[in-house]
């Protein structure tokens, strides 16, 4: 009982001290017992509550969004060098995000209802930035696609001047937003097509339901022209995946099919379609097929590809499975040279991974994510350097993609 009484007194003293400090008053002499008479460590300095400064996304930081209503959204930043959380920005569920090229402004495409699950719907492009990554306002959008997160439903132009937001309500369109004036420039109708792959100054491509591509050229006044290309893949038997990769700086898109065929396309007003090549053939295997019962190595996952621009390396989550297993997680990461179509490495993933991202700097980190874990790997050797627990991830991004 005595011990309990002493603890209660100590707690009361601490509470009184807290009140004094909160009121901005100096601590009383009795509070600094250890520092009296010049013996022991100095009295700890009083503190002021604030926000840790944010100086911009760094090359080794990973940004990822939450998966759905269970994870309740949020866009989170993790430092790949320490595996520590840097920041979290609020978002709705089923949001998408993109960083400005300088890594200081974060754009989030998201949807809210005035009464939570009902009421007036508001689709917005939310802007976060400044020294503490605060909300800087919103741009109202005419619509959005609400789906499980998909990388290519929202993107910026390579120079960060424009944002492109894919909408499906259910008529498909791409809204073009001028980020300098913070106004919607136009909505480009892309009937029969979906997703958005920006290239050049004001152009973008969308994939179409018949295996072709729609290419849009938008001028500064918002006038646009859309034309369709030839069909370049067999959409019914081996479609290219939503999460195919595109390097908007070079205009190179790598559209990758369920069976692991890579269709390189130089995105432009007149796209150049190059000869497809097989990921499995690059590893010395027979190309995968869609025949029932064929168990072989196949690409799969939620975001199963990452592309490193400077070294022309494609990272692919691979698993052994039957046809239609394109969302199974990868047990290995295959590293391929997209110029020579050669397999460079096969790296094991701890457990398995659904998402991949690779940093774009001289000392790359490779991020592999399961629904609960982030593994941070050396991007040259494949060695796992760190691991940390995460909430179920939806999308991933790094600086300079």
């Amino acid at each position, binding site marked *: 009982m005595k011990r309990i009484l002493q603890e209660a007194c100590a707690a009361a003293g601490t509470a009184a001290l807290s009140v004094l400090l909160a009121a901005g008053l100096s601590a009383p002499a009795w509070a600094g017992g250890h520092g009296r008479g010049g013996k022991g460590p100095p009295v700890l300095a009083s503190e002021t509550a604030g926000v840790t400064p944010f100086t911009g996304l760094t090359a080794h930081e990973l940004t990822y969004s939450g998966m759905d209503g269970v994870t309740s959204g949020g866009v989170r930043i993790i430092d790949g060098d320490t595996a520590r959380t840097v920041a979290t920005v609020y978002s709705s569920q*089923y949001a998408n995000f993109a960083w400005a090229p300088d890594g200081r402004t974060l754009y989030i495409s998201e949807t809210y209802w005035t009464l939570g*699950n*009902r009421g007036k719907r508001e689709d917005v492009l939310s802007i976060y930035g400044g020294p503490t990554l605060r909300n800087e306002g919103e741009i109202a959008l005419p619509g959005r696609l609400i789906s499980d997160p998909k990388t290519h439903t929202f993107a910026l132009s390579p120079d960060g001047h424009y944002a492109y937001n894919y909408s499906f309500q259910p008529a498909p369109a791409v809204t073009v937003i001028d980020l300098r004036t913070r106004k919607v420039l136009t909505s480009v109708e892309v009937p*029969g097509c*979906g*997703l958005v792959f920006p290239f050049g100054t004001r152009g973008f491509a969308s994939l179409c339901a018949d295996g072709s591509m729609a290419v849009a050229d938008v001028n500064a006044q918002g006038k646009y022209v859309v034309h369709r290309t030839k069909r370049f893949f067999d959409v019914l038997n081996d479609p290219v995946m*939503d999460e195919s990769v595109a390097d908007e700086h070079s205009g190179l898109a790598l559209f990758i099919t369920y069976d692991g065929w890579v269709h390189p396309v130089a995105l432009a007003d007149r796209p150049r379609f190059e000869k497809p090549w097989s990921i499995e053939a690059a590893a010395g295997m027979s190309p995968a097929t869609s025949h029932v019962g064929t168990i072989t190595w196949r690409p799969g996952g939620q975001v199963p590809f990452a592309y490193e621009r400077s070294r022309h390396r494609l990272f692919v989550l691979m698993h052994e499975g*039957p046809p*239609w297993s394109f969302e199974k997680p990868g047990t290995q990461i295959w590293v391929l040279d997209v110029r020579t179509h050669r397999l460079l490495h096969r790296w094991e993933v701890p457990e398995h991974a659904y998402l991949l991202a690779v940093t774009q700097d001289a000392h790359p980190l490779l991020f592999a994510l399961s629904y609960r874990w982030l593994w941070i790997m050396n991007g040259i050797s494949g060695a796992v350097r760190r691991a940390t627990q995460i909430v179920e991830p939806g999308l991933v991004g790094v600086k300079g993609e």
Partner: protein
Amino acid sequence: MNRSDLDTWSERLTRRLAGRLSRRSALARLGALLVAAPAFPLLPVQRARAADAAAGTDFSRAAQTHDDTACNYWRYCGIDGNLCSCCGGSVHTCPPGSQPSPTSWIGSCINPDDSRAYLIAYRDCCGANECNKCSCLNTDHAMPIYRPQANNHIIWCFGTQSFEYHCSMAVLVGLAE
């Protein structure tokens, strides 16, 4: 399986119309609604052809017909989400507190008991918080999002008062033959 000439012709016609008409066009609006309407026969029939009942799929070879709270229940060959059967509903009814969307995507699954392919409407129940039980991800004949009529990642809550996803049903539409 190759598609019939009629399918090919009708798809070309539809795409030609879609490519020429603006969204504001009444015809285009009608087309957009029809894409999302499970009662419209053209697209389901086309989807059904993807399910070859004779060959089956890797999913159908391991599917069962007695437990609709398990991910390998035969109708769930293309389902992505929480099974309404685990959330207070059933394969064709929404749990109380949620409401069914009039829209869906259409898949085709093979019933191991009679080895026939059936059309399945994957309808979402909307308006209640996500059930988060019996989460399944099956992908037989699921197509990318740029082919939305066969995509299971879209939140199919069009036409309801809420886009809050709760769970998914697998409503039997009929034979896919």
